[in-house]
């Protein structure tokens, strides 16, 4: 009897449950992708059939999940070394690396082809490019090669609202580019604020994070520079067809607070940060999450408010960059 029990215990480690495959798709990242893609899709001029819109969101999310699986396959060696990621399905021994790769490739193909069929070829191409960018350009190349990995890799996370927009319109416009830039420029200060207070073991995994290669003082300066660079893009969106007075007011306030936080991070040294357990860095990181959510929420609110004739008429005065 005891022999059987031993065999069964060994079998436990080798067979994945359904939730392990779901974990491979990085569901938390997918939730952000779903939200931003949905905003892009809802505010775009024109309309999709509700079923087409639902399919578009599902397949954009599936594409993001597929790139997550490919990332976990390629980074299994790094994940094994780092404490934060050591319990992921591959390093935990629940899913074989080749199985994760096969799942990633298969889901990528399904997501791209189905998005193409459900909407249009450009949306399908952009999703394919996003998966390629995240899995190959970021995971395989930049992540281990340069401390600017977060900056360029952030593009992968910035594509979903553009894909949502293109799914409806079939073309890339200024609005789609500004939604892209909003996430693209937001990613570095968001992640570097986290890197400052998370005592991560990237050095053990030989990943060149800015905090390790250039030091924490340089990272603080980088946060300030990128937060400054983010400001004009966030405001510019307010003057296009997706913006309006509500968005502009919120964007102005949020960017000033973000900038004030980045300034505070830049001004203080390590000793000061350690004395209050990185209180400012943690506050800015939490704020940055709200920053992105409120910006996209405001874009959505502007689209909803456009149904009210008097507000729409008033908002029209602000849309000086509207080209349609």
């Amino acid at each position, binding site marked *: 009897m005891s022999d059987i029990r031993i065999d*069964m215990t060994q079998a*436990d480690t080798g067979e994945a449950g359904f939730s392990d495959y779901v974990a491979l798709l990085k569901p938390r990242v997918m939730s952000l992708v779903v939200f931003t893609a949905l905003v892009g899709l809802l505010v775009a001029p024109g309309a999709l059939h509700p079923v087409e819109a639902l399919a578009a969101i599902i397949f954009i999310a599936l594409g993001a999940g597929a790139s997550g699986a490919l990332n976990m396959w390629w980074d299994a060696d790094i994940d094994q070394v780092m404490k934060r990621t050591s319990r992921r399905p591959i390093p935990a021994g629940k899913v074989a690396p080749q199985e994760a790769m096969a799942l990633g490739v298969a889901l990528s193909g399904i997501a791209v082809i189905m998005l193409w069929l459900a909407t249009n070829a450009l949306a399908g191409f952009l999703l394919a490019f996003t998966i390629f960018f995240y899995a190959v350009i970021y995971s395989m190349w930049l992540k281990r090669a340069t401390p600017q990995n977060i900056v360029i890799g952030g593009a992968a996370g910035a594509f979903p609202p553009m894909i949502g927009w293109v799914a409806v319109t079939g073309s890339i416009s200024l609005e789609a580019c500004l939604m892209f830039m909003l996430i693209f420029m937001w990613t570095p200060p968001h992640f570097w604020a986290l890197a400052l207070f998370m005592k991560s073991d990237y050095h053990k995994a030989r990943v060149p994070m800015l905090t390790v290669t250039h030091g924490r003082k340089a990272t603080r300066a980088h946060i300030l520079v990128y937060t400054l660079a983010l400001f004009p893009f966030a405001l510019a969106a307010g003057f296009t067809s997706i913006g309006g007075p509500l968005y502009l007011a919120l964007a102005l306030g949020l960017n000033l607070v973000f900038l004030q936080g980045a300034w505070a991070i830049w001004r203080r040294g390590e000793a000061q940060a350690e004395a209050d357990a990185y209180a400012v860095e943690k506050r800015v990181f939490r704020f940055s999450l709200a920053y992105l959510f409120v910006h996209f929420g405001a874009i959505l609110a502007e689209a909803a408010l456009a149904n009210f004739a008097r507000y729409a008429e008033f908002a029209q005065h602000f849309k000086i960059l509207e080209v349609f």
Partner: protein
Amino acid sequence: MAITREHELHKRRSGRNIGLAIVLVGFIGLVFGLTIAKVSGGSTLQAFDHTYRPSLDPDHVRFQQR
């Protein structure tokens, strides 16, 4: 008494199979819904076999001119 012992492994396999079944049924439902939406919308259909094609009509004016 059952002759086989239920193990945690069996529950995991069963969960995986049920999960996959739900995903596949959902996918079929979505493709079916998409088909209905595309057909009823009609905008992106080629409708190659379902429209009047002058090139196949011997009574069409273009044929009579030849």
